[in-house]
């Protein structure tokens, strides 16, 4: 989500950048350890900076990320090691025509000279891997490739740094051996043990966040590894949440475009082979036969259909409703099978929706007279990325003073009206758009609004008026005589 975050805050923070402008003298990295957890659609990268303060009361630390990495980072969090509270991160601008960007981290407590603080940067990268070979036949295995830069850049001197790349399976097809790194290490520049490939340790790096250093020393490394799970991509998710006070119901409906981002199918799909594979329980890694989703507890009337009608191949194990704010781990499990197994490069679209008691996700604040409703941004499909997400929250008719709180900023927010069954004026709608969402983004949006009691009565009054009008018309119409000639008896 960083791109959007950046777009929004860019102007505000250009000035701030000068304030934070980190002098390369304030810190020294005694160690940098970067761990890359390879996956399918998502790659988790955790970088730990052990920073030693060189100046008294150093309180701003700068992290540098290369441009392509920042492009594919969709979620980012900085913490002090061992603490829960994330730190404030501000975009620190990029040096002139630099290929990297600075992030300024505000430390909670100023660091004394010579004491060390461990800063943990956690990011999730999306669309960072790609299938290689790009096409695979039905029985073939699935391998992915991941590229990254060898050195972690820093505006400070670094004593030692290393990068660990963890592959999900020990079958690593190939990995790059860096060249010309004798300046930093005397041992082997890369070692592999099991599923882990370690680059480094590299010692005594100077200030690396400069253009000339990058051009001279930085290089790309690639890992080609076997991946045993399907690579899922939700190309588009449109969520509509409709709040009904009369029905005490929160209806959530997702229109989802599913895409298998694994290697494209080479040749054609053979049902015979697919049936043989599933009969002998050796399903190919890049075939998605089914999805298992965790839906909220207490839901009912779940529906799953696509453009040609109901899809009968699904199972739901619904959990009973849990009280609000309770730390219960209960959820309903939806086993969802597309109409056909999804092979590499295939699409499937479907609509999934359910009703849930409004009381499970809404409450009334008597002091302000406002209702507060929480709507999750998305349903987490494990290990998948949502390319585009649109969340539409439809409030009850006549809702006023609408405010919302987002867990992270949206690309765009729109307000409109929506007219549904027997509405007279329509309902206020807020639409949020997001891009590249991951597991970490499945958080609720909070919306608060007031509904005057007259608005509650609008619908019955409208219907009653219409019927009354009809009856009055009928009463008069019956009594009007339009015959031209009176019938003679």
């Amino acid at each position, binding site marked *: 989500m960083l791109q959007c975050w950046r777009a929004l805050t860019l102007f505000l923070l250009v000035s701030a950048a000068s304030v934070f402008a980190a002098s390369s003298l304030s810190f020294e990295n005694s160690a940098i350890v970067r761990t890359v957890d390879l996956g399918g659609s998502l790659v988790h990268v955790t970088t730990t900076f052990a920073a030693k303060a060189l100046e008294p009361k150093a309180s701003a630390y700068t992290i540098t990320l290369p441009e392509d990495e920042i492009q594919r980072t969709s979620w980012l969090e900085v913490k002090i090691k061992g603490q829960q509270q994330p730190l404030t991160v501000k975009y620190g601008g990029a040096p002139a025509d630099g290929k990297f960007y600075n992030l300024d981290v505000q430390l909670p407590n100023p660091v004394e000279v010579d004491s060390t603080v461990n800063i943990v940067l956690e990011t999730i990268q999306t669309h960072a891997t790609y299938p290689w070979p790009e096409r695979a036949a039905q029985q073939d295995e699935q391998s992915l490739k991941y590229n990254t830069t060898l050195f972690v850049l820093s505006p400070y001197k670094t004593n030692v740094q290393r990068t660990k790349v963890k592959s999900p399976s020990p079958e690593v097809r190939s990995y790059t051996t860096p060249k010309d790194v004798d300046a930093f290490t005397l041992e082997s520049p890369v070692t592999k043990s099991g599923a882990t490939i370690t680059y480094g340790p590299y010692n005594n790096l100077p200030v690396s966040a400069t253009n000339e250093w990058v051009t001279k020393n930085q290089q790309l490394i690639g890992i080609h590894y076997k991946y045993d799970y399907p690579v899922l991509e939700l190309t588009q998710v449109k969520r509509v949440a409709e709040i009904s006070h009369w029905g005490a119901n929160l209806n959530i409906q997702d229109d989802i475009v599913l895409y298998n981002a694994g290697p494209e199918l080479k040749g054609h799909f053979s*049902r015979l082979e697919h049936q043989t594979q599933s009969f002998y329980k050796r399903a190919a890694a890049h075939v998605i036969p089914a999805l298992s989703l965790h839906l909220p507890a207490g839901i009912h009337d779940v529906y799953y259909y696509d*453009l040609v009608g109901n899809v009968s191949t699904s199972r739901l194990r619904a959990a009973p409703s849990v009280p609000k704010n309770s730390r219960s781990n209960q959820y309903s499990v939806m086993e969802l099978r597309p109409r056909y197994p999804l092979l590499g490069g295939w699409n499937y679209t479907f609509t999934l929706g359910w009703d849930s008691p409004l009381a499970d996700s809404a409450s009334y604040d008597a002091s302000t007279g406002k209702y507060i409703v929480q709507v999750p941004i998305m349903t987490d499909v494990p290990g998948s990325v949502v390319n585009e997400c649109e969340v539409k929250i439809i409030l009850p008719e006549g809702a006023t003073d609408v405010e919302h709180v987002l867990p992270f900023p949206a690309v765009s927010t729109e307000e409109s009206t929506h007219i549904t069954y027997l509405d007279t004026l329509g309902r206020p709608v807020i639409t949020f758009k997001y891009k590249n969402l991951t597991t970490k983004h499945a958080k609720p949006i909070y919306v608060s609004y007031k509904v005057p009691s007259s608005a509650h009565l609008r619908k019955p009054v409208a219907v009653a008026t219409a019927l009354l009008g009809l009856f009055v018309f009928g009463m008069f119409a019956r009594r009007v005589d339009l015959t031209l000639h009176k019938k003679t008896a």
Partner: protein
Amino acid sequence: MSTAYPLPTNLSTTTVTNTASLLRIVALGLISAAAIASRLFAVINFESIIHEFDPWFNYRATRVLASQGFYEFWNWFDPTAWYPLGRVVGGTVYPGLMATSGVIYNFLHAFHLPVDIRNICVLLAPGFSALTAWATYMFTKEMKDESAGLLAAAFIGIVPGYISRSVAGSYDNEAIAIFLLMFTFYCWIKALKTGSALFGTLAAVFYFYMVAAWGGYAFITNMIPVHALTLMLMGRFSSRLYVAYCSWYAIGTLSSMQVPFVGFQPVRTSEHMGALGVFGLLQIVAFAQLARSHLSSKQFQNLLTVSVVAMGVVGTFGFIALTYMGWIAPWTGRFYSLWDTGYAKKYIPIIASVSEHQPTAWPSFFMDLQLLIFLFPAGVILCFRELRDEHVFVIIYSVVASYFAGVMVRLMLTLTPVVCVSSAVAFSSLIDTYLDPTQPEGEEESEADSSNGTNTAATPSKKEKAKKPAASTSALNDIVTAATSQSSSKSKSKGIWGLDTRLIVIVNAIGMLSFFVFHCTWVTANAYSSPSVVLASTNPDGSQHIIDDFREAYYWLRQNTPQDAVVMSWWDYGYQIAGMADRPTLVDNNTWNNSKSHIATVGKAMSSSEEVAYPILRKHDVDYVLVIFGGLLGYSGDDINKFLWMVRIAQGVWPDEIQEPNYFTPQGEYRVDDRASSAMKNSLMYKMSYYRFAELFGGNNAMDRVRQQTMPKVGPTLDYLDEAFTSENWIVRIYQVRKEDLLGRDLKSANAFAQGKKKKKSKPVSRRKAIPV
């Protein structure tokens, strides 16, 4: 006068009238509810889905109308049908059905009721069946009385013969056409009875609606003139007939010509000439009547008669001459097949290949009508008793519709309403007789009145009428009072004594009715409520298992092939592919103008060998070929079972290349196992159906469960097509047509090369095999 059971005496006539009218309204409401509810089996058992084949096109067209408006629909050119010709949809459909749904859709949306267009389409037929029940009530009321009307409404509401074409999801023209048919007839009868130009015009308006909705409008176009002609021949010409017919014909014909698909047919084709002729005849007769009323000369009257006959003869010859000169189109093939059931099979195999165009089997009469089938003649005979003008109509209708229903299964639908009407007349006469509380008086009087015996069965109902003057319509009133005044003056001599005899008959009648209800429910639930897009079977634990192969494959096509990929399949699936897969098709269920050669091309491609079929496929830009194969599951409606029709239709155009006998074994059997003929084994259809089928059985004998034949261990191979998709139960198999080899080899040798040298030995053999075809 003694009564069989005590009657309340302290009721005022207004109380009786009001109660009766309330009961009627409640009964009609319940009948409508039953009519709608019994059609919902399909929705409850499956889902709200469009059924079968043609409804998919209607649904697709309706969606265009609902989303883009009427004018867009009117001008809609569908480039995906009949690739590469396309189809001018606005000019080649009966738009009544789509327009109806569109109006309902817009009406509901105007009131902020955003009902999905699919649900409107699915529920249109049940909704209109309630209206049909009401129209039948009105119609039968004109024949006899309200109680017969209610019975008729109840019959038509649940009779399987009508339900078969109007279950929820069966979104076809017939869904609204039967209502329009009955209501037009009602307006016609009403106009005829009262001589009202208003009702004549109403009949014309509903006739126009009917023309816009269903090709079967020709039935009305000919029924009403035949009725008018018969009345004239019976010497029943009256100014009422003149007003009714002229207002109906003039307005009805002019308005029907506004439907683009009909256009000038009402004045240019033979099917419509009868109506025009009767119209002319009416003018002549009316003029003759006028002349006679002014000049009461016997000779002049004779002269007029002669001139009438002469004009009739001149008119007929003029019609024949015009036909020969080409001004009037001769009868179409479909029309001939109504008179000669073997005609279609000989000359138009495409019509004969449709199962609903087959002659009706006897059991289906009972299946569709049950007890009504033997009440029906009784009702027709009862019509002869009074033989008023409207009874003549029912009699003609019965005769004509019975014949047509015997010729074609689908025309069962037009027979059903008249069966319901006349059965209701018969049944309500029976009930009237046995519910009538009056006991006959002494025996000596009964003998004196025995000459009047034929009338007695009809009179009790009239008598009841007299007790409660409930008849609301003025037209009925005077007839009833006329009838009752004479019958009430006489005392009854024949009738039923006691309560027990009455009870026996009434209980029996009620028993019959309840069996009818059970039968209808059973038939509806089991025979007529399958969407045929979705199949149902039962799991070992008794739960329902849905076999959804069609939608699986169509959806795969929709999601994973290019938008403009052309799909070839047998024409049955054209509408479904267009509707669900949204892909261009070579042929579809609209068997119009040059369909013959187009469909024959597909038939030829399917029935010839790969080498012959491949150029045809490439010439028509075919990307995918879709076949339906039921051998794994035992689904008998598959393409191998329809294959002979493809062969026949292809043979009709290319008799030198395709010959039907080649597809049978020398013994004349239709086989698909290793005894199958070589033409069969090499045909594209056979190869696509059984490609890799035997491998599924892992070395065991592969069994085709439809044909109950054991398949050879080594299945057919394909060189020019690739298997692209096969659905879960192998019902739908989709093949991709290969592009030409890049090196210019023919695909067969390219394939053999790709598979390695070892194939080389077998290659010449397979080549030699291919040559005899």
